[in-house]
């Protein structure tokens, strides 16, 4: 390696292996995440121009903030975090070892204590070691320059907690990547009695029927129509070619050849009777429109949008109510001419609407549909394992503190020894201050009782 390359490599390792750099990356990650909370995601570009001043809306769209979690920024920051994590793991976390056994200046270490106790040094040393051992410390004794030292270690294995936590994060990242590479998901609305094919799996899904249960409840702020249950009875034909009758409910998805199907939504399709000069138009009348779909009136520039279904219209006011149960249904229709909105109106079921040029239409019959979400995710097991590994790492790192106590015992007078002890931990001294004080009390107490 040339000197320049070596220097560049050194700079790279120093930067990417630094905790401050990692925290800076977290900061950027956090800000991008927050942008996605505040800016509505995946909306039509017009929505941003309606909600924000034009320059901000343009910036949102240009910077991909309307789909920030799949933007190059977001993927890039995660990639940088993983890279930094890798550098740090190989350069710092794995090489981190237990400090070597060597003498220290007891009173230069912030956590230290010295006390005199009766007994010859060997006896006192043995008692101290026994007390520490009884509290789970591992004791090793060494002689340096004629002085005998005792080294007590605890939770040394927990130094690996950081590695465990970091591995958990990497495993989760691997699991989500697997989904991106190999998984798929989609949505479909299936009308009652209709069959649809899932494009990715060729599975056939037929909706036999859909039902929902709503409970009207009087609350302090008025009537609330609380949904209680949504149930789809389906017949699904998977790879084996055998149709199976299954039930899909919220919180109870079904599994067909590894792809899961979820109850996601429901709605009302509408059959319109469309006539021209009194004669039904077979093409337009034969279709069922879903909410949000429209048709063009032949020979005109007029277009009719079936905006939404209104299950119950108030008899007195003629206005839509919040009751989602179908009692007095109507539809909201919006008309436009050459793309210019003409207006919208509430049309009760089986009422005629004049469209001009001899065309008339009426909402004839509603057909309920069920919206399913389906998903195949081969990475989910990895993500699950990663989550638990990450959690184990957090618990190990936070609750098992690797610490070392250095002890030396010197004779100060016949049958009187001085015990000097100092402690260090991987997280500094303050977190161990109380525990060290308790430890010293027990050493003192035990030594004097003996």
């Amino acid at each position: 390696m040339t000197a320049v390359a070596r220097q560049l490599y050194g700079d790279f390792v120093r930067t990417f292996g630094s905790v401050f750099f990692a925290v800076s990356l977290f900061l950027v990650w956090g800000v991008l995440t927050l942008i996605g909370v505040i800016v509505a995601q995946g909306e039509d570009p017009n929505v941003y121009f309606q909600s924000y001043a034009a320059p901000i809306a343009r910036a949102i769209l240009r910077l991909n903030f309307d789909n920030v979690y799949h933007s190059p920024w977001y993927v890039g920051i995660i990639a940088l975090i993983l890279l930094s994590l890798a550098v740090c793991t190989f350069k710092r976390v794995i090489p981190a070892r237990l400090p070597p056994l060597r003498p220290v200046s007891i009173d230069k270490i912030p956590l230290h204590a010295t006390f005199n106790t009766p007994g010859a040094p060997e006896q006192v040393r043995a008692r101290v070691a026994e007390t520490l051992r009884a509290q789970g410390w591992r004791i090793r004794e060494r002689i340096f320059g004629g002085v005998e030292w005792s080294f007590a270690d605890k939770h040394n294995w927990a130094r690996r907690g950081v590695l465990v936590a970091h591995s958990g994060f990497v495993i989760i990242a691997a699991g989500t990547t697997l989904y991106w590479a190999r998984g798929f998901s989609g949505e479909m609305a299936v009308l009652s009695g209709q069959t649809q094919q899932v494009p990715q799996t060729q599975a056939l899904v037929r909706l036999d029927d859909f039902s929902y249960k709503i409970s009207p409840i009087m609350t302090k702020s008025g009537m609330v129509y609380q949904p209680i249950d949504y149930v789809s009875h389906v017949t699904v034909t998977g790879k084996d070619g055998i149709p199976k009758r299954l039930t899909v409910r919220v919180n109870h998805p079904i599994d067909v050849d590894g792809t899961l199907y979820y109850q996601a939504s429901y709605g009302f399709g509408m059959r319109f009777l469309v006539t021209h000069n009194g004669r039904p138009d077979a093409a337009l009348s034969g279709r069922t429109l879903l909410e949000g779909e429209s048709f063009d009136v032949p020979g005109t520039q007029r277009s009719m949008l079936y905006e939404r279904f209104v299950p119950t219209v108030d008899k007195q006011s003629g206005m839509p109510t919040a009751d989602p149960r179908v009692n007095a249904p109507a539809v909201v229709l919006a008309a436009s001419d050459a793309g210019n909105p003409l207006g919208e109106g509430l049309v009760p079921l089986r009422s005629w609407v004049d469209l001009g040029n001899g065309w008339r239409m009426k909402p004839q019959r509603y057909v309920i549909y069920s919206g399913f979400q389906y998903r195949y995710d081969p990475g989910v097991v990895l993500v699950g394992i990663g989550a638990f590994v990450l959690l184990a790492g957090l618990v190990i790192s936070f609750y098992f503190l690797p610490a070392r106590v250095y002890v030396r015992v010197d004779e100060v007078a016949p049958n009187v020894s001085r015990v000097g002890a100092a402690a260090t931990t991987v997280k500094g001294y303050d977190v161990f201050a109380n525990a060290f004080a308790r430890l010293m009390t027990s050493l003192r107490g035990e030594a004097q009782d003996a």
Partner: protein
Amino acid sequence: MPLDELLIAVALCAYTLGALALLGYFFARTPWLRDVGIPLAILGCVAQFGQLFARWELTHVWPLLNLYGSLSLFTAMSVAIYIGFAFRYKLWFAGGFVLALAAIFLAYGVTWYEGTMPPVPSLQSYWAKIHVPIVVSSYAAFLVAFVFSCIYLIKYYAERRLQSQEGSGRGNPLARWLSSLPSLPQLDVVVYRAVAIGLPLISVGIITGAMWAKEAWGAYWQWDPKETAALFSWIIYLAYMHLHTRHSWRGLRTNWVSVVGFLSIIFCYLGVNIWISGLHSYKV
């Protein structure tokens, strides 16, 4: 008055009076104020858990599925975690702030009381019984961390001001009062310990939330505003923990991060529920 409403009223009164007593103790260090404040804190906490249990028994509906119920648990857990810390590390002086926040959040929660409603389909899951208490408990631990971070910052800046003033000898009452608080490193350790409860809990909370989402909505992660806001808070506390491993950042800076972290928790908890709708305000 039904039992559960009576218990809430008891808790609110106990927290308010307890907050006044312990705030008095914080400033004046008069022991009897502490001896009045502590039992009130315990009484309020017991009344709250009693209330949640009573509501569950009376209605057979898991009581945490709306803001009223979850704020009840949040405040009860905040006080419970605080009481645990206070007994263990002798930190009664800080109780006034915890109880005052608990009283405010609880009073706010009561304004969301709508009576009992059966849960919507997406909430009819055993995950509701696991995920919600865990997430709310993590928020509670972060509240305790926040209170101690504020005390840390108050002490830090007050000490700095004292040092820059002339004649700030030992006779100065502010200096005397400050010395009655634990040292800055001790306060910092308390914050660390509270975050060390909150961070694993919010991690389990996010993981159980993901497991529930997978069952209810088809994907363990959908970038729903609530999920993402929780991820944002998680990232902040992760930054806290990493900074805390560095000696030079431990203290002033990490405590500011803890303050920002709690603000993000409040945003995630209340801000997202109220201002931003998403799957967590699931309509279907």
